[in-house]
């Protein structure tokens, strides 16, 4: 059956590797590896093909604004002359890679502003809800909200990045029953209406997390971005079993009870990360379906990348913009909206998998949420593998307790000095001392979080907050507790050892090393990601 534009997308599935299975493509930072997995005991989880996007996104957005979900009036009924309106939107960390223009945020924000203009609303602020992420540059903001919106608001100081360290710009709205401070952007708190514009790339995003985290600073984040909470988030991508989300939901209640009216607009995208056509299209094809041209293109691409310096390779990949299409948009009351959004994310990404594995392998790509237009440093490698990809499960982790995680990434000992200054010190000082998240949290977090220089750089430069590398490390704390060993294939040995992991030159070596932990002839599962998939493990 076809939908008229593309053949009907095939769902994700699990391939049992046999002797005829071709080598499998592993992402390897800004490069690739072809790996032959052992036959008879290996399987590969493939993502679903991209769902079809909405044929008329503008009409769908307008429909969502006029027909909200849950206990919410249509947006036009919430707008009136003389009111304070704040539009907050997701920052540079979404989607990944950045999508081609027009970005979904632009489409949605223009639709909201259209209605606001019709209602005679004058007092409008637009805020990039980046919490303690780095500030977005002008180019990045223009890409997200479009030139029209940027030119209309930014020069007048009405479109800006959240400054979560501005003592006058933040406010404590209250405390949850668990004693968690709800730290919130003052402008949003004092607005008659906050419209949040979200892109839900994975099921972790959205819901109360959009505002309770996105518009908060360290004072609020420390209550859920900590080792205890993250070890009890099983998984981060499964909202109902995530302590992180439970905390955000509690904070959401406090925000609501404080009188902050939030109109949530959530969108989902398909997983057309590399395009159905074009130079990277083969990255989302299944290997046995590669044509002769695909093989030649892959070999040429790999040979070309091999001779380029890493900086150039990274810049080439940074230019890639994904042709994502919007698959759904829903608006209204936060929780009702998020339920539908999560279902729509699952419809694209969820792949049923039976049983756990002894060894989980994954090829880490060149990008994660915190190195857009930047360097993927070793801490971010850890966070992407153990924090994000490991947690892309529902039910049980893909790998059994005490199992081994094998990741493929060059893991260079490299840092972006502007974006990640505190990462450098975290890597050099903290990890040189200990890799135990509990110990790190106890001994070092406060010092980094309150460091005046890091705060200055966060507020005035383009640096992640001083505490951010700690959160990256905590993000992987559930995996660190669960796994028996972590091995990185093709990484810088010194950097890998500093992370507390073991380096391996080849996948065969890694599997040999893994057998020391899980025994001979272990079962192996490869998570072929991206395009994104989430394992529904039974």
């Amino acid at each position: 059956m076809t939908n008229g534009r593309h053949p009907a997308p095939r769902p994700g599935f699990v391939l049992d590797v046999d002797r005829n299975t071709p080598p499998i493509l592993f992402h390897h930072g800004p490069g690739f590896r072809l790996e032959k997995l052992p036959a008879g005991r290996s399987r590969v989880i493939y993502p679903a093909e991209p769902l079809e996007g909405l044929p008329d996104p503008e009409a769908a957005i307008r429909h969502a604004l006029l027909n909200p979900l849950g206990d919410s009036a249509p947006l036009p009924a919430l707008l009136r002359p003389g009111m304070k309106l704040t539009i907050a939107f997701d920052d540079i960390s979404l989607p990944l890679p950045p999508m081609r223009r027009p970005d979904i945020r632009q489409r949605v924000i223009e639709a909201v502003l259209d209605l606001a203009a019709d209602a005679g609303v004058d007092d409008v602020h637009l805020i990039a809800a980046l919490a303690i992420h780095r500030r977005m540059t002008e180019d990045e903001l223009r890409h997200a909200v479009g030139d029209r919106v940027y030119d209309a608001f930014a020069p007048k100081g009405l479109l800006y990045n959240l400054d979560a360290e501005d003592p006058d710009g933040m406010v404590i709205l209250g405390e949850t029953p668990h004693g968690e401070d709800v730290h919130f952007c003052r402008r949003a708190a004092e607005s008659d209406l906050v419209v949040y514009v979200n892109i839900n790339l994975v099921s972790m995003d959205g819901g109360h997390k959009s505002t309770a985290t996105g518009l908060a600073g360290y004072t609020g984040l420390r209550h859920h971005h900590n080792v205890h909470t993250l070890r009890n988030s099983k998984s981060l991508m499964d909202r109902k079993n995530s302590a992180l989300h439970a905390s955000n939901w509690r904070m959401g209640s406090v925000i609501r009870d404080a009188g902050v009216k939030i109109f949530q607009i959530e969108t989902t995208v398909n997983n057309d990360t590399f395009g159905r056509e074009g130079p990277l299209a083969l990255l989302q094809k299944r290997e046995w379906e590669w044509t002769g041209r695909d093989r030649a293109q892959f070999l040429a691409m790999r040979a070309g990348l091999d001779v380029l310096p890493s900086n150039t390779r990274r810049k080439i990949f940074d230019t890639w913009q994904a042709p994502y299409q919007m698959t759904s948009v829903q608006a209204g009351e936060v929780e009702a909206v998020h339920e539908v959004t999560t279902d729509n994310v699952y419809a694209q990404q969820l792949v049923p998998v039976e049983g756990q594995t002894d060894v989980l392998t994954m090829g880490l790509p060149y990008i994660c949420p915190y190195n857009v237009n930047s360097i993927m440093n070793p801490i971010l490698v850890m966070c992407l593998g153990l924090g994000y990809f490991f947690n892309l499960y529902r039910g049980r982790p893909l790998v059994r307790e005490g199992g081994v995680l094998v990741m493929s990434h060059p893991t260079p000992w490299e840092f972006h000095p502007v974006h990640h200054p505190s990462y450098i010190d975290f890597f050099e000082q903290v990890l040189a001392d200990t890799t135990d998240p509990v110990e790190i949290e106890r001994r070092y977090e406060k010092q980094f979080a309150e460091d005046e220089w890091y705060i200055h750089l966060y507020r005035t430069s383009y640096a992640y907050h001083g505490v951010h590398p700690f959160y990256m490390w905590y993000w992987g704390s559930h995996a660190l507790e669960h796994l028996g060993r972590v091995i990185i294939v093709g990484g810088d040995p010194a950097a890998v050892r500093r992370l507390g992991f073991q380096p391996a030159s080849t996948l065969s070596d890694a599997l040999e090393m893994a057998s020391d932990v899980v025994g001979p002839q272990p079962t192996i599962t490869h998570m072929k990601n991206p395009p994104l998939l989430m394992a529904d493990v039974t």
Partner: protein
Amino acid sequence: MPLGIAPPPERRRLGADYDTAWARRYPARLARAAIVEGVMRPVMAVVADPTRAGVDRLDGLDGPAVFAANHHSHADTPLLMTSIPEPWRHQLVVAAAADYFFASRAGSALSALAIGAVPVERTRVSRDSGDRIAELIGEGWSLLIYPEGGRSPDGWGQEFRGGAAYLAIRCGVPVVPVHVAGTGRILRKGRNLPRRAKTTVTFGTPLAPHSDENARAFNERLEAAVTGLADETATDWWEARRRTRDGSSPNLTGPAGGAWRRAWALGDRDGRTRRRRRRWPEL
């Protein structure tokens, strides 16, 4: 010929009767693409230094469309031909005044070849031009038309005539409102030598006629859209959007009143005045 028989009227080969079909065959299209990309684009880059805004609004546009723009200057057409994005750019015809562009054989051939002009009667009522263009749109060609019917005589816009709206309704295609700013400075009506100036081309959201909308009402909507785009260029999108809502967008046609008052209200927008700054008196 016997005197009692009236001679058949001589077949006109110019003006609205000029046959431009040859200019839409592949060799001519190829030549036009070369002219657009090889001549017009670099010339416009130097002379007009264009800023192109709103191209993303054409994202969902599929199939042929009518591009309707305000008209200040002969520079408008090359500027628009290099600004209208693919896939419309190279399958585009331009509605050109039959009495001006198709008055001579050489001029007709040049207009048809270089800009893909098709003749449109503007001095007399005729169905032929509309039929011909409707046929072309039916074949997949897009149309660039200036609903004002001619270049601005004084720097202000003129009221839109209904041709663009009529053709869109008749052919069932959307109209893309386009505003061009700054070309009046390059080559306003009455000038022969161009001068350099910054220009802005702003594309608006494509408009589709409503099911019960007549050409007059659709034309008013189109003119309001171009007026809004003019305001967007002069201020910003949000200001323009709010003024559109209030109905207070500055009028394209300028203030009523005498010529001097209209010229006065124009300020230096048409670039008529050239200030010479001398650091030292010439002796």
